[in-house]
């Protein structure tokens, strides 16, 4: 098992390395080169030269890449042109908001999707099944931003149940330790702050959960259907085991394997969906900041965030792989 974990950890290196190459190539491949992105359209040849000089664009490409890699290794991803703060700092301060939101969404998706998928599969062709199948299809096809907007209008503007924006009621007394508001509230015992943070998470969490929820429901359903047909489930039943044992140990446990993998790549969907959801809910995480960066052509942030998000994504997938290894003894071998 340890070997497996170490192996997976080491496999990160080529991926991250490849990522840096890709990003670097991408900057260079921008039509007209990076100066087009950084200089005004009517820039003079002199300005161009000066920029090329200062960015070392005339150095051999390998030297440039080496410098790029060196900077990254030192955590230097440049400075945001919007805020003038280092990109890494921006990311680190905004990450907790997005992480909190994404985790909420994932919890919703898993907590609702798995039971729903399971019961849909058990009552295949029944009413619940039809509802789950159509519901999840519609869920996948509904643009996140529209859903977010509708949720806001209904639950916040009309019914006034949940707040319509941000992570926290302004002016609430909350101590910040980790940047995760709910966690902070629990750690410090500021229960009202924790509750406030939870209330703020509900609507964006649901909006962001829509796609993962749909995917997990469908996947659970398909995979439960498949597992129900497996010989070992028949064996378990032949042993006269209680229904609950069969369901938990023999059906769900195996049916969860593909779902676990899905959680990994859904993390990507969550990070992407955060761009839209956070903007609608003014949530102030990396998604919204990235959106502002696209608006203001904040290239250092765009590229830096992409690199960091991809790293986070790769890390999540590695964790998912490792937990998959924990769940499925067969993959540990390799």
């Amino acid at each position: 098992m340890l070997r497996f974990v170490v192996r997976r950890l080491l496999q990160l290196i080529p991926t991250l390395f490849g990522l840096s190459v890709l990003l670097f190539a991408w900057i260079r491949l921008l039509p007209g080169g990076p100066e087009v992105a950084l200089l005004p359209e009517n820039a003079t040849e002199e300005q161009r030269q000066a920029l090329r000089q200062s960015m070392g664009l005339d150095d051999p490409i390998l030297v440039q890449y080496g410098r790029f890699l060196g900077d990254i290794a030192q955590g230097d991803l440049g400075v945001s042109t919007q805020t003038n703060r280092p990109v890494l700092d921006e990311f680190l301060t905004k990450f907790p908001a997005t992480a909190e939101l994404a985790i909420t969404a994932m919890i919703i998706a898993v907590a609702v999707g798995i039971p729903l998928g399971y019961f849909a599969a058990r009552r295949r062709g029944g009413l619940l099944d039809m509802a789950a199948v159509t519901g999840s299809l519609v869920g996948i096809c509904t643009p996140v931003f529209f859903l977010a907007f509708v949720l806001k209008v209904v639950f916040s503007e009309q019914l006034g149940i949940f707040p319509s924006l941000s992570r926290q009621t302004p002016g609430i007394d909350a101590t910040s330790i980790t940047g995760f508001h709910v966690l902070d509230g629990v750690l410090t015992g500021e229960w009202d702050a924790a509750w406030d943070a939870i209330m703020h998470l509900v609507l964006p969490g649901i909006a962001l959960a829509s796609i993962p929820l749909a995917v997990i429901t469908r996947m659970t359903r398909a995979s439960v259907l498949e597992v129900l047909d497996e010989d070992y489930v028949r064996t378990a039943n032949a042993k006269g085991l209680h229904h609950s044992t069969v369901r938990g140990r023999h059906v769900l446990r195996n049916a969860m394997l593909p779902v676990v993998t899905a959680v990994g790549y859904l993390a990507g969907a969550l990070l992407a969906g955060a761009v839209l959801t956070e903007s609608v809910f003014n949530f102030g995480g990396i998604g919204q900041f990235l959106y502002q960066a696209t608006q203001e052509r904040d290239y250092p942030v765009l590229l830096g965030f992409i690199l960091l998000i991809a790293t986070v994504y790769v890390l999540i997938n590695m964790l998912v792989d490792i937990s998959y290894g924990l769940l499925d003894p067969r993959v540990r071998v390799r």
Partner: protein
Amino acid sequence: MSKKSDRIDRLAELTAARAEDSEGHSVWRESFHRLRRSPMAIVGASVVVVFVLVALLGDIIAPHDPISQSWRDEVFPNRNEFVGPRPENLLGLDNMGRDQFSRMVIGARQSLLVGVVATVLGLSAGAVLGGVAGAAAGLGGVWGARLDAVIMRVVDVMLALPTLLLAVTVAALLGPSLVTVMIAVGVAQVPIFARLLRGSMLAQANRDYVLAASAVGVRTRRIVVAHILPNSLGPVIVQATLVLGIAIIDAAALSYLGLGNPDPAVPEWGTMLADAQRFLSGAPELAVYPALAIIITALGFTLLGEAMRESLDPKLRK
């Protein structure tokens, strides 16, 4: 003598029912037959057909110029006064006094265009990458394995970038335009297609019929092209259908984020939806129409894709 043939006829009659006619049905055709019986496919295909027709025949269907603000004297967005459905404007007017119905119709064209171009882009680039990797890994020995490893590493890395995020960044770097959206959405699909085709090809490469073909003396190139590829395309076609749906949603999202066509007059569902949210209190339908259009169209493609997936599923093939 006659007694014997009677007897044979009788038995033949009884067994005939199972012997079926001897006209061969290819797997594709069988799938298609199954597809035609699936309600999911029927609904999906109808939506898709209507959508494509509307998109192609938009100019004929649309009763008015979707860009001309012909009735702008009748609409006062600043006072929340809008014009709802009426005989000459089936879906009413938008906030600029344009015929909403015509805009919806012409908007379909943008969506189709983005969807098709992005999918073709993603599919062709992905298929080339995946096809080369798959062929190399399946048959190519040591060097093939290395080529495959290199390509798949690149694809892994691309896969590490969440698709919409990749699209947003591409769009931001290239500047807003329709072409940007197509490229962005297309590029995001490349790794998915590549993986899919490679996986599917590898699965096929291990099948006995491939071995049989090379045992017969078929050249490697022909094995790939004539045996492995056609059998691997099923999932790719399914995915392409699904991607068409996704592309329409993603394109709407990009337009919503302001990364689409910078000309706001050109009707595009995502932009229309983003725009209309401002008038939710006065004219909620302005937002609802494009939203429904996006959902229904994407749903149509998704249903069709899912139905195709089911009809191609070997498990259902008896």
